[in-house]
């Protein structure tokens, strides 16, 4: 299809190696703070790229990613905690068997987190995809909240509001960036396959998609389940980065953050989701000063925690009104475009 194919594959491999080199450098020379930010970016990329699959690519406005991230975080954390640690943590009610005795390696727990979240997405999909548009948004919003409430109330599984503490800090830069690369690679390929094309068709015109024989219900299920899988993994990485999780972490607020990221990047663009995740995390750090007390010389503003979110919300409103396509629209980065821009070796198609 594309005569520059070989060159592009080579560039992609080189690009990936460059990212890995940066990871290596950051890991050995970066400050703890820088590493923390890079980890956050990578985890947000995993979550945002998969969230974009259902909201942006397939056009089904789900508001439930917090449910899958929560389930992934709890699943993986419960699997890596040792029986002894669980016994200490669960002070109100003991952890139920067999969770109380199982311990698995990090990789296994991460994959389990993905599988369990994917299962939840699959089951949730049955009622969710009987609805469309606004109703779908409301139903998924409800499910997101239900999962959080369940986490809060199943004392013998999640330790309730106390949450889980002392989770091993397994999420190194290699894990988080590795997961981000794998997620982008797999979802990117999927979106470019005819399955991805079918998902886009559903977004643009569902009736026409049915007319060309696309089982729209099933393809929405595929997108939702895949998205749930990677969000679960994102949750697992998050749990093993911050080492303490509790239900308050997985409120609608988390969904809202992811929404800002994918809208900012451009709904429907994987590249946009990546850029959004970077800008959001970076911007969030950079804007930290607005949360702190400020002395403007003539007036003193006391520190208002949460001011950053006000700014992000304003950005979201601004984008929705003036720049609905975000940074990328539905376009994707590709090497042909970059080479053309740089004016090198681009043979025209």
């Amino acid at each position: 299809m594309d005569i520059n194919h070989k060159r592009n594959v080579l560039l992609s491999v080189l690009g990936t190696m460059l990212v890995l080199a940066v990871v290596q450098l950051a890991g050995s020379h970066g400050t703890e703070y820088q590493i923390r930010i890079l980890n956050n970016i990578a985890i947000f990329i995993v979550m945002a790229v998969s969230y974009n699959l259902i909201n942006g690519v397939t056009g089904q406005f789900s508001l439930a990613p917090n449910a899958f991230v929560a389930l992934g975080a709890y699943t993986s954390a419960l699997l890596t905690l040792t029986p002894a640690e669980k016994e200490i943590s669960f002070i109100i009610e003991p952890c139920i068997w067999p969770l109380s005795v199982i311990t698995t390696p990090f990789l296994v727990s991460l994959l389990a987190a993905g599988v369990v979240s994917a299962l939840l997405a699959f089951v949730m999909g049955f009622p969710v995809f009987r609805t469309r548009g606004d109703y779908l948004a409301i139903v998924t919003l409800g499910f997101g909240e239900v999962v959080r409430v369940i986490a809060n109330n199943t004392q013998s599984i999640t330790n309730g509001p106390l949450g889980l503490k002392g989770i091993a800090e397994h999420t190194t830069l290699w894990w988080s960036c590795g997961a981000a690369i794998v997620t982008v690679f797999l979802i990117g390929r999927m979106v470019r396959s005819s399955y991805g094309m079918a998902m886009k068709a559903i977004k643009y015109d569902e009736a026409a998609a049915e007319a060309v024989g696309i089982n729209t219900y099933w393809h929405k299920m595929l997108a939702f389940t895949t998205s749930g899988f990677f969000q679960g993994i994102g949750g697992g990485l998050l749990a093993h980065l911050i080492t303490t999780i509790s239900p308050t972490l997985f409120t609608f607020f988390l969904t809202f953050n992811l929404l800002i990221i994918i809208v900012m990047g451009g709904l429907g663009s994987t590249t946009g989701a990546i850029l959004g995740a970077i800008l959001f995390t970076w911007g969030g750090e950079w804007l930290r000063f607005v949360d702190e007390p400020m002395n403007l010389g003539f007036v003193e503003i006391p520190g208002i925690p949460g001011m950053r979110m006000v700014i992000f919300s304003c950005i979201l409103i601004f984008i929705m009104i003036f720049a609905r396509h975000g940074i990328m629209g539905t376009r994707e980065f590709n090497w042909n475009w970059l080479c053309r821009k740089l004016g090198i070796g681009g043979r025209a198609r």
Partner: protein
Amino acid sequence: MSVLSVEHLTMKFGGLVAVNDFHLELEKGEIVGLIGPNGAGKTTVFNMIAGYYVPTEGSIRFQGQPTQGKKANQITKAGIARTFQNIRLFSELSVIENVMIGYHCRLRSTFLGATLKLPLYRREEKMMHEGALKLLAEVGLTDVAHEMSTSLPYGKQRRLEIARALATGPQLLLLDEPAAGMNPNETQDLLQLILRLRKDYDLTVFLIEHDMKFVMEICERIKVLDYGTTIAEGTPHEIQNNPRVIEAYLGEVQCA
């Protein structure tokens, strides 16, 4: 055995009877027209055959099999493809992608196989691409294959929709006002195109059209709907001289 057999088909929207006791037998290879004034219920008949509406009463059999309870996508897979009166292309997909997508429903690769680009998927993707190119050549859109579908002029969009429908591998093609918005030259080309496609792809064609010259020229049989009721049926010659049809159209037929 007829390709399509429709009996006692009735569609009510609340108190409105959009289609009333509609009958139809399509033999293999026929081109049959459905005409009638605006709001007569023509598109509603298509929507029932294609699985978009569940008929209030009546039965539809495609190649002997009842289509009752089947979703629109299953009916497409069974071999009935359609185009829409108000063109419905996938706006942000390119012209060739709009056709390639038609092959997706017959893909044998699994979701995982396609994501991992296993050999079967690579082969199938190549077939989709080549098939789409062939169909685009067939409808004369090769030169715009990589443009955005919505940037095309009306007549080309209509032909693209036909190519997309053909990609699903149909035996029966339902065309809802394929000549709408076309100039006389384009309409003539379309006529030749439909005749050629019928021959090359072994199609049976059922079409709705307001352009009487086109309908009279291409159809072997015509059915006339008025307020949901079939008021006439026959060869173009019979229809043209049918007083009830002339009355329904207020003389439109004679003028055309």
